[in-house]
């Protein structure tokens, strides 16, 4: 039994290394190094009145400590609150919508509906946000109607709701498209079987369809929530300076005060929160449900 075989000449693994160089260069230069720099900047001392930190600024935790104040915490929780509300509401609308599209529409109409939602998603965020501000905003055609009902378009509650609506305008199409695949994977005969066994339709859906869609719902929620807390344009335009999301705070630090270290610290916190949410949702919670 002689050992005559030989390794084959070209290993696929080795040949691809040079192909990874362009990506390596791009990611290193345009992402990892800048992010590292941002991280470093967040620890530098900021002298009010200058632009950014000076070259030899000492390292400090001050920028992060500043974020523990009630003022910043307020912004932080407002962002989370509105994002959470918008994400959950988005799912609440998207699920019946996706279900209806999957089960009740003919293939032709479903294709049209899918096309409609894809178009909505592709639509520039500016266009959508402007459209919402135009329609529902303080200067828009609905103003008389709102005033007659007693709602002030300039009131804080209204503006918060409008920001939420702006988020919703992106979340609903995205979640619907995600859930289409999920619902298609649920065998409709399972609900039939449950009804044949005596359960009313609503109970059948609650105990069968919903749990089977948990994974997709979780994925959609995850995407909606991380999108919402990172939102910039929507709160900027619809929030009118009264409702500020964390991203807007970063921009203000940068453009109005030139306090780069603080902006950097807020950015890192935002990034960390986004990462944490992704981790928690995709590993811990989905393990319980799937």
């Amino acid at each position, binding site marked *: 039994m002689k050992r005559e075989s030989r390794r084959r000449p070209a290993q696929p693994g080795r040949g691809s290394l040079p192909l990874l160089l362009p990506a390596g260069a*791009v990611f290193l230069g345009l992402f990892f190094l800048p992010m590292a720099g941002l991280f470093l900047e967040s620890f530098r001392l900021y002298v009010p009145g200058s632009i950014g930190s000076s070259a030899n600024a000492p390292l400090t935790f001050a920028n992060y400590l500043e974020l523990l104040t009630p003022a910043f915490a307020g912004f932080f929780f407002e962002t989370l609150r509105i994002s959470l509300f918008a994400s959950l509401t988005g799912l609440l609308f998207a699920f019946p919508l996706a279900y209806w599209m999957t089960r009740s529409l003919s293939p032709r109409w479903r294709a049209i509906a899918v096309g409609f939602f894809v178009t909505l998603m592709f639509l520039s965020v500016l266009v959508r946000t402007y459209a919402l501000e135009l329609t529902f905003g303080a200067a828009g055609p609905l103003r008389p109607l709102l005033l007659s009902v007693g709602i002030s378009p300039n009131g804080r509650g209204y503006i918060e709701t409008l920001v939420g609506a702006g988020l919703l305008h992106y979340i609903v199409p995205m979640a619907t498209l995600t859930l289409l695949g999920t619902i298609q994977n649920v065998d409709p005969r399972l609900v039939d079987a449950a009804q044949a066994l005596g359960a009313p339709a609503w109970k059948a859906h609650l105990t069968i369809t919903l749990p089977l869609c948990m994974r997709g719902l979780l994925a959609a929620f995850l995407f909606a929530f991380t999108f919402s807390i990172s939102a910039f344009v929507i709160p900027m335009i619809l929030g009118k300076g009264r409702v500020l999301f964390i991203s807007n705070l970063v921009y203000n630090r940068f453009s109005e005060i030139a306090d780069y270290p603080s902006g950097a610290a807020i950015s890192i916190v935002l990034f960390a929160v986004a990462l944490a949410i992704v981790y928690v949702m995709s590993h811990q919670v989905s393990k319980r449900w799937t």
Partner: protein
Amino acid sequence: MGGRVLDDGFRLLALVLIGAIICFLLTPIIVTVVMAFDARAYLGPLPPPALSLRWFAQFFSDDYFLRGLSVSVQLAVLSVTISLCVGVTTAFAVERATFAGKEALISLFLSPLLVPPVVTGFALLLFLSHLGLINGFARLLCGHIIITVPYTIRATLAGLAGIDRSLTEAALILGATERRAFWDVTLPLARTSIVSGAIFAFAVSMDDVAVSIMLTDANTFTLPVALISSMRANFDLSIAAASVMLMLVTLALIVILEKFVGLNRVIGQGVFRS
């Protein structure tokens, strides 16, 4: 009996929800399109008494917007081209390799998608300033490249995953070397995914606000940045006209996507999932 009432109740509720959300999604769009043709010089209540193209004329004669448009298009074309080259080569390299950290490497390449765009822009601004790169267009280009590359990588990877391994083996056993098999089989079959990745990247670049706003300077700005400044300064209907133009561009992209790739494949490739 209670079950049936609840069933009907829930079904009605679901239909109401569906109707409401579709109205909500459509109404602002319709309002914007209608108002873009409003003949009045101010923002008045609906419906507009007369229609006119004045706002479109104003948009096209506004040097500010046109400059922004020109920069946006140049940036989109350049960044998509570079992203395609980088993204496709990366996806091919990663797909073929079989080393242990492959999944981690893919997550790493897709990580910019997790970072809030403002943070990406801010980090890049600080870094490029430190390097001494002050040219506005170059900085914007850097930003647009890093936000579009994950899309080209992801789309290409998804397309490659859909190619049956036995097709490459069939080519090999028929006499083609690995390289010829790549050109004859793998590349043509991945082509539609690569195109869809390019279209996504184009849309992302044209639409970006947060990264661009951090990297812009007084002379070089994108159309979205121009629109935002205009919105905050003077909320008039020329922006509505701009919106309608952008809607048309979007529709054009969708039509191209549908013709070339088919929308069902786009959904199926999970590009809309995180």
